[in-house]
């Protein structure tokens, strides 16, 4: 400090650069950053062979970064790999890689007796497989030709289980962090509703009453209907509040606007179904087209996206899910009212009756929370299935990921994946 102050105005100070550039002088040792830089660049651009820069020209090299997202990442709904090509922070290409959870379930189902197929189907959805079990039951009933002879009470209970599963799944999806409307009340209501519905469904499916062909495996008492009925008004109030809040102030879910948008034509071509297709404005619902179980005597409303929203994006999908949950709760109330007057018989014929089906092919499709679940079974009269093929809604949704994500930003991947409600075991089988 003293030296600086002592410098007089106009004095010529020694130039440090000129001094260091003197010929013969030793070069200054590089600092730590210079030493680390090549290694850092190597790590950044050559992470294995997956993160490498690609492109034949220097421009392409500088522009697009090929990056691998997953298969294990806390933001991913299940082990899934997305190979993306980034243009800045925009996704230029998306290539989903599947199969990290492949269990060979179709092969496994061909190796066990017909009724043990229920245990295989339960592995399609580890959290709540009631829809998959019911789809298997429907396929087997069609194979034996007894799908019209199932007791009415059992059919109505199946509707209650399917709709409860739909509400539980919708609320589970809506309660995932990137999705709920941006108020604490709405978030709490969705989490609370999700937990309550899950509890009701777990109570209803305890002891696996739906793992049977031709009826229920064990009778379900009227008390169960009372128990569910008692919870319904509270659940309806919770969801109505959320829906009204969103309708009053649309900014609450504006953070999802335009994310993962897909047009109705592309969605149909990619085989989407369920809320993802209805969010595009296509009024398609398997429950309406094929009223199996007790759906024939109930009026199923088809929930479509608001046309003003343009539709097809994560926001429209979430709104469809919310409105569908409310509609399903109303449907459950109607079905429960009919269950009480539907007579006593809901038992399935004994399991011995289902050892060897007639020869032939049967198909079954159900509208699950994510979309159409389809099964195809072939029998050659043996005690085991000859062929089993399963196609769940998650498979079509994963196939549609490139169409939804290209053009979006890299940080939109998470809300888009969340809004689809993917089930990994169902996609990978």
């Amino acid at each position: 400090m003293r030296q600086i102050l002592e410098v007089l105005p106009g004095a010529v100070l020694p130039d440090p650069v000129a001094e260091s550039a003197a010929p013969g002088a030793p070069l200054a040792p590089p600092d730590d950053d210079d030493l680390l830089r090549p290694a850092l660049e190597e790590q950044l651009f050559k992470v294995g062979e997956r993160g490498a820069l690609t492109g034949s020209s220097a421009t392409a090299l500088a522009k697009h970064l090929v990056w691998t997202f997953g298969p294990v990442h806390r933001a991913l709904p299940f082990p899934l790999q997305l190979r993306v090509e980034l243009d800045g922070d925009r996704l230029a290409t998306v290539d989903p890689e599947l199969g990290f959870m492949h269990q060979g379930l179709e092969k496994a189902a061909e190796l066990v007796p017909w009724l043990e197929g229920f245990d295989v189907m339960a592995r399609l959805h580890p959290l709540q497989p009631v829809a998959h079990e019911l789809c298997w039951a429907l396929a087997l009933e069609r194979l034996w030709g007894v799908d019209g002879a199932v007791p009415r009470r059992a059919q109505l209970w199946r509707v209650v289980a399917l709709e409860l599963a739909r509400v539980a799944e919708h609320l589970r999806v809506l309660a995932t962090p990137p999705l709920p409307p941006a108020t604490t009340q709405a978030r709490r209501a969705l989490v609370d509703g999700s937990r309550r519905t899950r509890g009701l469904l777990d109570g209803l499916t305890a002891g696996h009453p739906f793992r049977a062909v031709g009826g229920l495996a064990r009778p379900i008492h009227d008390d169960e209907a009372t128990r569910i009925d008692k919870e319904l008004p509270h659940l309806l109030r919770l969801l109505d509040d959320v829906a009204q809040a969103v309708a009053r102030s649309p900014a609450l879910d504006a953070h999802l606007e335009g994310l993962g948008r897909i047009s109705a034509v592309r969605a149909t071509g990619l085989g989407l179904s369920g809320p993802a297709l209805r969010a595009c404005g296509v009024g398609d619902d398997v429950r309406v087209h094929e009223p199996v179980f007790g759906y024939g005597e109930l009026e199923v409303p088809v929930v479509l996206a608001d046309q003003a929203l343009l539709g097809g994006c994560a926001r429209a999908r979430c709104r469809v899910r919310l409105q569908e949950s409310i509609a399903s709760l109303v449907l459950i109330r109607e079905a429960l009212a009919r269950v009480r007057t539907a007579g006593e018989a809901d038992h399935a014929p004994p399991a011995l009756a289902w050892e060897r089906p007639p020869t032939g092919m049967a198909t079954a499709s159900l509208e699950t929370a994510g979309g159409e679940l389809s099964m195809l079974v072939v029998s050659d009269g043996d005690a085991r299935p000859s062929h089993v093929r399963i196609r769940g809604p998650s498979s079509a949704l994963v196939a549609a990921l490139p169409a939804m994500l290209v053009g979006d930003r890299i940080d939109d991947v998470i809300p888009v994946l969340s809004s689809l409600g993917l089930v990994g075991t169902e996609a990978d089988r």
Partner: protein
Amino acid sequence: MTGHAGPTRPGREAGHIVRLVRNRLGDAAVVDALPHADGDRLVVVSGQLVELITFLQRDPDTDLQLLVNIAALDRGPSSDARAPRYDVVYHLRSPRLGYRAFVTVRVPAHEPSVPSITGLFAAAEHMEREVHEMVGVYPEGHPKLRPLLLYAGFTGHPLRKDYQATLQQPLVAPLDGHHAPLVFGPPPGDAAGAQGALHAPHDEKGVQS
């Protein structure tokens, strides 16, 4: 927000698609046609598949715009290589009219291939990849054929009838084994026993000696 579809729309009666196909494309367009309550079933030869599916997708009366699934079924090996061994079932549905159709192609063992329909349905791309890896039926004209659920080093087609479920693969451990596979005789090229423990035969309890 909610659009109500009104009263339930039941699907068309069985035989609707069969009649339309016979009227518009002629009797020669299909090998066999079976009206069915859960969706009409059509059997077609491989060469006429694309024409038939194009008609089913684009005609406003059939309107089967949704490809639900492509399932390949293996009947198992037979002594006659020219006999049909695989059935490839195309499952189509109309989201507007609400009915289904199943189009089956019978594929012989000596030439396991079907024409790709990725030009008609984008959904077919993943499904045909799966058909190829699982059953080994080659979709001719697929833009980018590679495994979907399996990996590049996987050998064989798991959903074929002659594929053993217990077969060991490079990345798949044996199904029933928490121990190394049973090997009889001395391991090849290993006299000193450096890897002897890996190749040692098991005793009755499955424990390596």
